[in-house]
């Protein structure tokens, strides 16, 4: 199981545009990918509904997980989206 811990850098949190970018990136993964807080349940990273409902705010630490071939690369790409400040 590959795992990344990453802080949300977008001022709006993982919402609207950053959420769309995140889910678009996650959708490319052949395996299941999850996102969540350390203290709570993880949700399907490919579901825009689930990601919006997670309601992650600026500065929050999130945990990403995936398993299988290419998991490390997928998580790197997703962590980059989350750690990216607003353009």
């Amino acid at each position, binding site marked *: 199981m590959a795992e990344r811990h990453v802080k949300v850098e977008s*001022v*709006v949190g993982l*919402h*609207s*545009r950053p*959420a*769309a*970018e995140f*889910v*678009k990136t996650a959708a490319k993964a052949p395996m299941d990918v999850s996102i969540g807080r350390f203290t709570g349940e993880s*949700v*399907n990273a*490919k*579901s*825009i*509904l*689930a990601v*919006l*409902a997670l*309601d992650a705010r600026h500065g929050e630490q999130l945990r990403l997980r995936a398993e299988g071939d290419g998991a490390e690369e997928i998580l790197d790409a997703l962590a980059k989206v989350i750690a990216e400040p*607003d353009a």
Partner: protein
Amino acid sequence: MYAPLAGSVIPLAEVPDPAFGLLGAGVAVEPAGQGEVTARAPISGTLLTLRSHAFAILDDQGRAVLVHLGIDTAGLRDGGFTRLRAKGDRIRVGEPVTRWNLTALAGRSPLCPVIALEAPEVTRTAAGTVQVGDRLFVWNNSPSKEDHG
């Protein structure tokens, strides 16, 4: 899916931010009038998220809609938004969600994308101008429930 605001219906493709097309299908409404407007619930359900500049409602069939008030308004320090409800509230179609003072836009676009989240396509049922409560579009089919986390 009913109009959350009175205004003009604009195709999503004409919204100057392609990210909205990644969220699902829908249209945008350019609010009519100036000064203060009230954004209302386009469907009945539960407030899944409620930010100053945007809210999402999940209905009891597992379908969700996002209403985004203006383009690039998320980063505004004072975007003129007053939230009238709280995240997690049950809400009925037409009830006020957010009061919005359009004079706080600071040059940004007032277009409000109304998106059926994860829907591949919707059927538009309105063109030109709409009043609050006019039907904007209908879902072509329901997304599968299992993907909703």
